[in-house]
């Protein structure tokens, strides 16, 4: 076990005057000397919950890169055939492929974690009960499925 450092220090810190106290007399000198722990820079690695949160946040960065890539593609398309072909060839670059695969994974992570969180934001009261979290989440998956189907058939119809 550890032992006390034994250093006896005179109390520091100023006297607290009556924020909470109605008096007019000067406050006696405080013996408070609170220790203020600081938050570590790596706090987001501390436990599973924080790590999951960090992953959710990071996932949006990767998705952001992916969207940026698409925007570049659009700009190239607009510029003409030559630059479009340059962009298409860029897509086969291993780095870009990795990014795309990662983006798929991360957007799934992002979507599922957000869906999981939606019952906290959307609360539907029916009588004296709330609609179970499961149904709120399920609704989101249902919406996603419908949306995906629409996009799919729209593309398929092209």
């Amino acid at each position, binding site marked *: *076990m*550890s*032992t*006390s*450092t*034994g*250093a*006896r*220090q005179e*109390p520091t810190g100023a006297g607290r005057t009556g924020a909470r106290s109605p008096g007019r007399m000067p406050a006696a000198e405080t*013996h*408070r*000397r*609170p*220790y*203020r*722990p600081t*938050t570590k820079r790596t*706090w*987001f690695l*501390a*436990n599973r*919950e*924080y790590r999951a*949160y960090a992953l959710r*946040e990071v996932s949006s960065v990767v998705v952001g890169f992916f969207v940026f890539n698409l925007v570049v593609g659009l700009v190239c398309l607009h510029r003409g055939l030559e630059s479009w072909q340059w962009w298409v060839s860029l897509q086969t670059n291993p780095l870009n492929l990795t990014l795309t695969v990662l983006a798929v994974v991360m957007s799934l992570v992002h979507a599922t974690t957000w869906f999981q*969180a939606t*019952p*906290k*934001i959307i*609360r539907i*009261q029916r*009588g*004296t*009960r*709330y609609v179970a979290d499961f149904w709120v989440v399920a609704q989101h998956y249902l919406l996603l499925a419908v949306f995906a189907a629409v996009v799919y058939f729209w593309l398929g119809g092209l």
Partner: protein
Amino acid sequence: MTESSHGHPGAGASAADGVQPVGATAEQPEPRPRRDGAAAGPEAGGTITLQVLRYRPDREDAPYLQDFEVPWRTETSVLDALTWVKDNLEPSLTFRWSCRMAICGSCGFMLNGEPKLGCESFVRDYAPGPLRIEPLANHAVERDLVVDLEPFMASLRAVQPYVISDDRHPVPEPGNRQTPEQMVAYGQYSQCINCMLCYAACPQVGLATDFLGPAAVTLAVRYNKDSRDHGADSRLPILDNEGGIWPCTFVGACSTVCPKGVDPAAAIQQAKGATAQAWAAEFILPHRGEGR
């Protein structure tokens, strides 16, 4: 904030090396069979090492961990173990407690890094140990396991946690009617015991010093959602503020650790939603700001 003779765990204690049993010699109740580290059977028990954070402002510049060897039985709570240390080994060990039934909110500690109520956590779940007991994270430490609650008390006052009536809604005599449905709208948010576990769990409380924090925001939402209250407008500027609800990045840890199922994360997200709505309403129909 005191100790008492209640809840002594039973068996023979041995002070950790170097710990002076101060006062009378450590009490040695009748010996019981020891089963170190046994899972929580009906008759589990043994001894465990507590590693308790010590910080005495008149003596030390920084906290350190002190070990105590403590006997326990099935029903020994972590709080019982601490009071046993205070009564038998180290009277100067300081921690808050009162009700020992998880309702007064005094006894929040970090147990092996997780915020928990000491009176509602049991040694059997940490056997064979060691069990590290520290003051709640994200708080200034006044002494040993006692943290500074004044910032929270200021947040509490700031959110106007009381029924606000207005001229358009006179209070009916003798009282209001409120259906069970209307009660459910705020019921969960009225269960908060101000135990500060959610503050200890929230990284944003540690990073953004002026964040109102989960419990205070929850209380604002509790009144906003009460059919008897008409103060949402008055609370809006406190919530919709840099130090109000916006530091929340929706980590969600507050709701995970809450011992009363209050779900402060939900309350905060709903406050964000309501604030955004009020903001949009103001944008579309300026100065109609009726809030609710």
